[in-house]
């Protein structure tokens, strides 16, 4: 049902069903479509309050109808993710479209959020279905296995799924304080079993400067 048209436009075929999409991301459609903003990301009153409190704002709309709807956002690359009763952790600003059947929520990320400039909370997408996430440049999905942990630059991290534990690592030493840091003083270390999505571009982060 989700098709990529090029790498930057997503086509979704709808037959009376619905998808959740980032507010204002529709670029074109044919057939009949109705767009409705979902207050609080469609998570009810509790979700709405949580999002307000955590600052993990997500403005989504429900798109329902018959035909094909095209989505794109600021010429960002789009990546499709399949979920099989699985949880995807992604920044709200990187989430483009999800199946209506997937549940969204917020979760605490710990110290990592502070360093990658995303805040202390992240958005979770849970259930079985497909989601489309945005990246600056085409993203790579890196597999993490129990014997192969992965270290990621916080500014290049966009999402992860599976059973992963994350630790925050810092390589701060006296050189960093002398202003001779390598720019790679902070990393996120993923351990367990799952996939990590990394983009070929780094956001401006607190950790990236040192």
């Amino acid at each position, binding site marked *: 049902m989700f098709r990529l048209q*090029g790498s*930057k436009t997503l086509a979704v075929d709808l037959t009376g069903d619905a998808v959740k999409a980032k507010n204002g991301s529709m670029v074109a459609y*044919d057939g009949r479509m109705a767009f409705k903003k979902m207050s609080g990301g469609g998570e009810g009153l509790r979700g709405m309050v949580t999002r307000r409190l955590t600052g993990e704002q997500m403005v989504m709309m429900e798109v329902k109808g018959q035909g094909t709807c095209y989505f794109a956002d*600021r010429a960002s690359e789009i990546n499709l993710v399949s979920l099989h009763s699985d949880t995807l952790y992604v920044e709200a600003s990187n989430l483009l479209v999800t199946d209506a059947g997937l549940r969204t929520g917020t979760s605490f990320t710990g110290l990592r959020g502070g360093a990658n400039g995303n805040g202390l909370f992240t958005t979770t997408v849970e259930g079985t279905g497909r989601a489309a996430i945005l990246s600056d440049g085409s993203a790579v999905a890196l597999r993490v296995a129990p014997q192969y942990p992965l270290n990621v630059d916080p500014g290049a991290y966009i999402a992860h799924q599976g059973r992963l534990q994350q630790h925050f690592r810092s390589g701060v030493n006296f050189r960093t304080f002398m202003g001779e840091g390598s720019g790679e003083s902070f990393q996120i270390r993923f351990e367990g079993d799952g996939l990590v999505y990394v983009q070929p571009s780094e956001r401006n982060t607190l950790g990236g400067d040192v």
Partner: protein
Amino acid sequence: MPFREINSKMVEAVVSPGRKMYSQRGAMLAYRGDVSFTPNIQGGQGGLGSMIGRRVADEAAPLMTVEGSGTVMFGHGGHHIQVIDLAGDTLCVEADRLLAFDGTLQQGTLFLGSQGGVMGMVRGQVTGQGLFTTTLKGHGAVAVMAHGGVIELPITPGRPVHVDPQAYVAHHGDVANKLSTALGWRDMVGRGSGEAFQLELSGNGAVYVQASEEKL
């Protein structure tokens, strides 16, 4: 086919004597052979009348004439380039999106009010197109710029296409467009889905849509 796509952001065109082209001023990247670039004060074809028309319509993109014999490469601002071939039909595009086009094409300006009267003018204002748009007519090729990649959506009778005005790039063929609103009470209280205005294109032709909602 005078344009050859080198990559998604550069095109190469062949000019020969008697076969000139128009391009946006400053969009030449490199050339081979004996080619001259003449700034075109009139901003395109036609005489003084069309020049004044374009000035009044604020569709006076600075153009230059490319003549001689050789090959010229065009690109601008790292924008994606889409080459559109016209076979006798009319392409409607904003002047600032035009990168280069064949000298054989006829350039003109279209008053949006002439398509749907007052609603046409309202549409121009809402979409940020202004009250006028540029038309190109005839046989030849046009290179237009867009932010992000471009997709082409066919329009067939009975199957209209709705486009976000900010993502609209150009359209060609026998197409009528009107602004459709889906304004509801939600938009009035600031809880809109951000998709309150759409361009509805119906008829026979194609519309080009960019993968971004940013203007050039």
